[in-house]
């Protein structure tokens, strides 16, 4: 099966000059809010003093080298991990001390795409995508319709009856995106959705992330260490009429897509792409260059 989409490959986009600073201001009702969060696993802290927010319709791109704690931060967001210090608000609920049983209903309002897809090997694509719906005892006809809609969104309708073992790495990620989207979540968490994929497949995945951002306006946190993916998200938009992503006019960037950067467990940058490229922080400069 072809991994590429009909869309054009984006060039190595760099943002042009921006008239004003778009660094995120304090958000009144954040979807997610981290306040001085720290966590350690039998050793030195993995994350410390992390504070940031995700507002409605906002896409936060979390940058940083491998092993810096990006995936840990994402798992803290929906309570898969508990912090040692600080507080995390998800949809206005303090989740750091919330019992696991109370977290389950909260998590159903989020969608998460794992690094390798994390599809259930023993289930077909249909059952993987419909996992939550099956648990909610939704009628089979409705499940089939909604699964086909979700698979159509990721352009993988033909995989309906296949098992994950017969899918390529890129297709698994796309099925994982379909699974995360099927209940139209209020927050999406992408854990390195393009990690380990070839550039063409990565572009297909980024286009899907952009499609979700621009069509459904779902707030999200996207973890990546690929700058090109991050810049593509900032400098392109999804054109629903053409069914593909198109570059924004020169000098324009998506105002709702902003950046976070981690270095050795600390958040060293929180701002717009223009702040990022102008940053004088040596680590940011080294990362960008």
């Amino acid at each position, binding site marked *: 099966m072809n991994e590429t989409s009909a869309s054009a490959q984006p060039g190595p986009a760099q943002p042009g000059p921006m008239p004003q600073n778009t660094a995120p201001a304090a958000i009144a009702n954040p979807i997610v809010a981290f306040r001085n969060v720290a966590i350690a696993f039998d050793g030195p802290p993995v994350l410390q003093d992390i504070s940031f927010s995700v507002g409605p319709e906002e896409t936060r791109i979390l940058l940083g080298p491998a092993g810096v704690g990006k995936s840990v931060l994402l798992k803290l967001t*929906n309570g898969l991990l508990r912090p040692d210090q600080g507080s995390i608000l998800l949809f206005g609920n303090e989740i750091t001390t919330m019992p696991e049983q109370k977290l389950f209903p909260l*998590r159903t309002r989020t969608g998460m795409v794992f*690094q390798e897809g*994390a599809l259930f090997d023993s289930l077909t694509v249909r059952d993987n995508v419909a*996992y*939550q719906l099956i*648990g909610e005892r939704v009628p089979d006809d409705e499940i089939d319709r909604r699964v086909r809609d979700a698979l159509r969104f990721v352009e993988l309708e033909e995989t309906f009856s296949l098992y994950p073992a017969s899918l390529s790495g890129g297709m698994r990620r796309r099925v994982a995106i379909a699974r995360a989207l099927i209940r139209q979540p209020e927050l999406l968490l992408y854990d390195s959705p393009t990690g380990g994929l070839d550039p063409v497949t990565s572009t297909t995945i980024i286009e899907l992330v952009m499609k979700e951002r621009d069509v459904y306006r779902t707030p999200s946190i996207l973890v990546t260490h690929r700058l090109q993916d991050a810049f593509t998200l900032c400098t392109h938009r999804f054109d629903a009429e053409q069914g593909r992503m198109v570059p924004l006019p020169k000098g324009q960037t998506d105002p709702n897509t902003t950046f976070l950067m981690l270095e050795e467990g600390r958040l060293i940058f929180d701002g717009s792409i223009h702040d990022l490229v102008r940053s004088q922080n040596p680590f940011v400069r080294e990362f960008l260059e």
Partner: protein
Amino acid sequence: MALDTVDRTAKQLVHTVQDYSLFAYRAAMNLFRPPRYWPEFLVQADIIGWGSTSIVLLSGFFTGGVLALQSAATLSAFGATAITGRFVSLTMIRELGPVLTGVMVSGRNASSMASELGSMVVTEQIDAMRALGVDPIRKLVTPRLFACISMLFFLTILADAFGILGGSFVTIFMNHQDGTQYFSTAWESLRYPDVIQGLVKPLFSGFIIASIGCFYGMRTSGGTEGVGRSTIDAVVISSVLIIVADFLLTQVLLSLFSSL
């Protein structure tokens, strides 16, 4: 330095026991709260029950046969070969049936539970399940726990029956003794306390096999190598615990029945 190591190991042991106790409690209590995953229970009952039937029948049959061979050799010295049936049936029903079935099922199923759940942990499928709002203990562990308990009960009955049959085969065809005498002494010597003892033990063994197998599977770390470690730990610890529990239960049940 040595004291530090002892201190750390002791803390780890206490921590593991605490984690296991909470894990097993949650898994058991889930049966009394919805949602209950009956299809998963039936799938696991099939895997554990039907899947283990052949090894349990074979091991039961040949253990009964060995018992008859060994006991006949010893009993003949006292001219008491007539009670071979009694010896085989009591030993199979009270001790060897439950313990042997537990150990055989542990080797097959504690390992498969640990490796299956361990693989799911290292490929983030367990995290994905939690992220989708499904409790993996309720969905994966509770059905395995109750399937294992219920199936081990029936597998033990089968092992007992085939053990007695194996003993009869040796008695009749190899020792050339009277089959009717074998079965009548086997039947007449049995008392309710013997049967109750034999049927209570597999309930505990089933709990140990599934809870230990799932516990070590769910706490797997360190990739595929970690899955291997979890599998070994699950089989070794569940097998040892089955024998330890058998000893303690025998002591308790013997005291209980002797006081009645």
